[in-house]
């Protein structure tokens, strides 16, 4: 019977694996192939120039700046999002005033959950229109309008949030955090609900407060979920294309002012489509692929811990 197993498995796998190879692996190989050429994206004529694109890449100051921005986002986005999501999830599930009923969330927690999740339902296009209005550079903007009304800012000198080199990256980061917190809140909530209530009750009986319950019980038991969240958010941090290309100033795919919000993906697209340096852009794509892989592997390895069965 045993030797019939493999044809059976192969029979099932051949279509999906074939599709995967054709639509995923083959384009990667092609991208790598193009990265060794001076292809301009609009013709079938190209010349192999070896690793020249890669060597140019490492002396390209804009690419370096974009890389620094991505790394900065890589450090900040997962930390901020996870801390906020964890805090809210904890408050919604076990943070309520423990009465005689035992462990519960704050009042109206199911409504909050829906509200927090709402940003995830919005498409990036709607998100853009909304935050363009929030960060609008004159007193008609939501943020500037509030600051002017509060007397914290002069309407003749509004903060040009997305066009100010000192604020633009933070604004983009804030938008992305806002976008993802709700998702991880729900995700962590689901994980928290899988933690048996009696553990919390035991802790309560022993006189543990909210902080202790959170640090000693919730956090260790959520470690697997945290790890997953970390990797996903790291991947989000390596991307940022949609936010930067739509919200920030600049001629093609944003990244301004003067590259202060440039990320790898926007610089790639500008080279690929706008500058006609498609071979060079493919080299960038290969570098981004490897960076993302390394980041995912590091995140997975470094967060590996002993599992607690319950």
């Amino acid at each position, binding site marked *: 019977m045993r030797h019939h197993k493999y044809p059976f498995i192969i029979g099932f796998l051949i279509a999906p694996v074939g599709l995967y190879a054709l639509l995923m692996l083959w384009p990667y190989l092609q991208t790598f192939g193009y990265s060794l050429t001076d292809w301009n994206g609009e013709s079938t004529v190209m010349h192999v120039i070896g690793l020249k694109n890669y060597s140019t890449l490492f002396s390209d100051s804009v690419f370096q700046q974009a890389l620094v921005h991505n790394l900065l986002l890589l450090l900040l986005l997962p930390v901020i999002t996870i801390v906020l999501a964890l805090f809210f999830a904890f408050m919604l599930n076990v943070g309520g005033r423990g009465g005689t009923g035992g462990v519960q969330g704050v009042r109206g927690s199911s409504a909050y959950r829906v509200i927090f999740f709402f940003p995830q339902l919005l498409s990036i296009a709607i998100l853009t229109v909304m935050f363009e209005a929030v960060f609008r550079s*004159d007193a008609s903007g939501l943020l500037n309008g509030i600051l002017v009304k509060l007397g914290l800012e002069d309407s003749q000198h509004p903060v040009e949030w997305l066009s100010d080199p000192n604020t633009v990256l933070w604004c983009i980061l804030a938008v992305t955090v806002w976008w993802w917190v709700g998702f991880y809140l729900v995700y962590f909530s689901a994980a928290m609900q899988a933690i048996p209530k009696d553990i919390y009750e035991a802790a309560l009986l022993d006189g543990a407060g909210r902080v202790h319950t959170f640090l000693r019980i919730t956090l260790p038991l959520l470690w697997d979920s945290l790890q997953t969240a970390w990797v996903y958010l790291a991947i989000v941090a390596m991307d940022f294309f949609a936010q930067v290309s739509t919200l920030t100033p600049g001629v093609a795919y944003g990244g301004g002012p003067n590259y202060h919000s440039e990320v790898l993906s926007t610089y790639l697209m500008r080279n690929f489509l706008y500058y006609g340096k498609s071979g060079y852009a493919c080299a960038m794509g290969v570098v981004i692929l490897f960076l993302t892989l390394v980041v995912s592997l590091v995140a997975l390895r470094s967060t590996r811990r002993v599992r607690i069965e319950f």
Partner: protein
Amino acid sequence: MGSTIEQTFGRRDLIKRAALLGITAVPTTGLLSGCAASGGAGQQATGAKSAANPLGVAEIAPLDVVIFNGGFGDAYAKQFETMYVKEFPQAKVSHTSTQNITGLLQPRLNAGDPPDVVDNSGNQQIKTDILQKAGQLTDLTPLLDTPSIDDPNKKIRDTLMPGTIELGTVGGQFVLLQYVYTVFGLWYSGKLFKQHGWSEPKTWTDFLSLGGEIKKRGIAPFVHQGKYPYYINIAIVDLAVKNGGTDFLSRLDRMDPTIWEEGPAKNAIEAIYEIVSNNYLLPGTNGMTHIEAQTAWNEYKAAFIPCGAWLENEQLKATPSDFEMTFMPMPSLPGDKMPHQAIRGGANEPYIVPKSARNARGGMAFMRIMLSKAGATAFAQTANSLTVVKDGISPDVKLRPGTQSTVTALKAAGNSVFNPTYMYDYSAFDVDMGNSSAELMANRIKPAEWLSQVKAAAVKAQKGGS
């Protein structure tokens, strides 16, 4: 719980996703070769040539028109179609309008059954150099040599704005009819100016002193579409071209970096910087999108805005009915080589006749109608824009105020119309210059730094080739 299985699968999934987010650069070469695949075109419809039908259109052949439904809408094309039917009453005209030209056109080109005339515009246009190389475009030279509808003694080529034929020539063949003629300059509200008794400034000195007057009334003298430095670049470059003349223009277009050390560029950028140093900018303008900036201007929050002639159509809904949108040339700097009336102007919006179109002659006859005075007038009235037909609009026709003012300005400019092309050939330079201009408008750099940055960008562009 079955955690180990979950974990292994979860991890594999993550790496897969990591790879997915890396890059998916699907090559577009398949698309290109697809264009070349056709060839089995059906019989082309032809008719006898005559004075009334100089292109020899088959009078009964149906005409298939595809129009890009973008900023100009598609109502104007229906008017052309009515005119076509008037000329060939037996012909049946079908009208298709779309925003996805490639999606509609490509399968039909590949099947050898393309439409007879196409407005190949918008984001989804098929790149015309690719179509030309694939032999998909009809050579429109016969159209140029056909007598004009308005004057049988004049060939169509002599009724076009200068530059139209050059801009429509790809690979040595005239294959594109770039139909819309766009002028660039500054815009103001005639109503606002009359109300305060201001008059159109002819020189930069007048412009700056008027700016002081405007500011006293609590209005910002200048607003620009700061999120997209494209617009302020037009103002800067046009000042410099008018100052340095054709010599500056040709050196700019062939990316001669030394022009950024010389007078015209220096004069232009110092003039623009005076807007910043005099605090003439609308607060927040440097972060505004084109719609935000233009709408603020429509709300009389600012007096002048730089833009191309599509402004009136783009702002149709936001413009108050008594706004009197008015176009003016960039003001003169001391020592200008070009007259005050000189403006930037050029043709765009390419129309094509596919090579394997069944009624290619009908397609050309359609273009001949577009290039008549009646066609140009219909376009100006319906789409609020000018066409490449020289003096195409009779003076008694009522146009919207903005469009009317561009007709006047274009007539006054005469031969002093210029059209820089460096941004098409050196797109990276264009981006670099835009970044420097945005920094200057935000007062983070001074004119001297702007000049040295732009010069460095030009040196880089000259070396890199693009």
